[in-house]
């Protein structure tokens, strides 16, 4: 890693002004489990001048519940979410997503905000500078995407955004999307559906450079509801998802009244399965309706030469996640 200036922020306001006043590029650090990897490999065209530490800001690491729902501070670790009895009881999809993220060691340091703001894992994008020079591909502002003509076995099965076919790697993102969360920042409140924006430069979110996530709010629907999360990865203990899926449904009289289903690891941004959601409304959730939803989820898939295996995988994970929601 090359050197940078490291500043402990005492408050959210101070962190924002440190970002604004930095003479060169500045990043915030939460757990650091993604950021330090990017810095060690010197991935970016501009190396940061300053790193602003959020962990010295009091009050950002608590979980609480009120009539609006679940309030998760930006610095809450994935371990804390996975082990929270309240989250496990009412938002099992989120608890399971946190529990299946990375490894226990990384969950001990990795935060929820860091998890949804993390960089993509395309192996060309992540190619370390120290081994023959980093790759400045389209996503970084360069000319070419190396994955399209190269090895794209883990890349998008739903086409490219601005010529990039890297997938969003986050495990908690689909859970937060299924649960219709809201992201509170230092500037505004962003509905989770508008939070991810791969293709607008290196970063994966719509955050401004001087904007910090402070809290995530997960609502608590009034009706009878269920939610679930599943992940398929090579190893159970530690691996990014080949595909993952979260679903949240409400029911009345045994019929689905609302559905939110999200796949990740299949496209640049987490992908809502809107056709599958619409098909479930007004019907009971059973093997036949789940099957139909699974098929609709991949109806528009356009796999590349090497990643066709992800299509049946995505279909199956939608079906299985929905069946986990059957009451």
């Amino acid at each position, binding site marked *: 890693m090359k*050197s940078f200036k490291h500043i402990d922020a005492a408050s959210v306001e101070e962190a924002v002004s440190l970002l604004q006043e930095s003479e060169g590029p500045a990043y915030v650090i939460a757990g650091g489990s993604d950021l330090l990897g990017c810095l060690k490999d010197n991935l970016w065209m501009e190396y940061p001048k300053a790193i602003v530490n959020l962990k010295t800001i009091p009050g950002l690491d608590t979980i609480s519940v009120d009539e609006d729902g679940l309030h998760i501070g930006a610095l809450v670790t994935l371990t804390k979410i996975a082990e929270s009895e309240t989250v496990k009881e009412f938002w099992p999809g989120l608890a399971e997503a946190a529990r299946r993220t*990375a*490894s*226990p060691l*990384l969950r001990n340091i990795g935060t929820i905000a860091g998890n949804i703001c993390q960089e993509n894992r395309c192996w060309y994008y992540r190619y370390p500078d120290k081994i023959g020079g980093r790759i400045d591909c389209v996503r970084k502002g360069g000319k070419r995407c190396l994955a399209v003509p190269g090895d794209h076995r883990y890349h998008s099965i739903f086409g490219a955004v601005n010529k990039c076919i890297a997938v969003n790697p986050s495990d908690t993102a689909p859970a937060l999307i299924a649960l219709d969360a809201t992201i509170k920042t230092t500037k505004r409140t962003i509905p989770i559906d508008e939070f991810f924006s791969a293709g607008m430069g290196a970063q994966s979110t719509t955050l401004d450079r001087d904007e910090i996530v402070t809290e995530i709010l997960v609502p608590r629907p009034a009706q009878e509801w269920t939610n679930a999360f599943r992940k398929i990865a090579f190893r159970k*203990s530690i691996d990014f998802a080949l595909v993952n899926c979260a679903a949240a449904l409400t029911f009345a009289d045994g019929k689905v009244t609302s559905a939110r289903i999200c796949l990740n690891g299949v496209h640049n941004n987490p992908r809502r399965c809107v056709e599958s959601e619409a098909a479930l409304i007004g019907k009971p959730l059973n093997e036949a309706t789940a099957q139909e939803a699974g098929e609709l989820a991949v109806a528009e898939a356009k796999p590349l030469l090497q990643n066709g295996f992800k299509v049946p995988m995505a279909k199956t994970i939608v079906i299985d996640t929905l069946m986990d929601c059957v009451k």
Partner: protein
Amino acid sequence: MTQNEKLTKLIQLTINGESRPLLVEAHWTLSKVLRNDCGHTGTKEACNEGACGSCTVLIDDIATPACMVLAIEQEGKNIETIEGLSKDGQLHPIQEAWLEEYGAQCGFCSPGMIMSTKGLLIKNANPTDDEIKEALGGNLCICSNYEHIINAVRSAARKMSKEQANV
């Protein structure tokens, strides 16, 4: 401010109960500082990207990959490394269990495995096999000695519960 003043800082690190002053650069990881500046080479650095667990230490009793945290952020925290386990020439029960159950083959992953085990047993004194497997999920053993490692954790849990009961 000179360039140097901006990027280095004198910090006080508490390692295995001993506090010491250290001049660190902002970008130095804890594993680098433990190994190169404190002589605690029991903390291994294998992948250096948070994926193998060989650099695991406890920070305020929480198992942490030392290669993925900055040393400069650890002031005021209690860092425990493999070197801190044995006391007065007496092995820690987890280390004893490792010897008795053949927890080590080449031994390179052992310090990290043992620190993860300590972190687990602090939270959960009597873990099930599934809980052991989940807790050690971030520690890789390239000899694939997992059966023996799990036996060692079970045995360590028993030893420590017995010790607790005798106090």
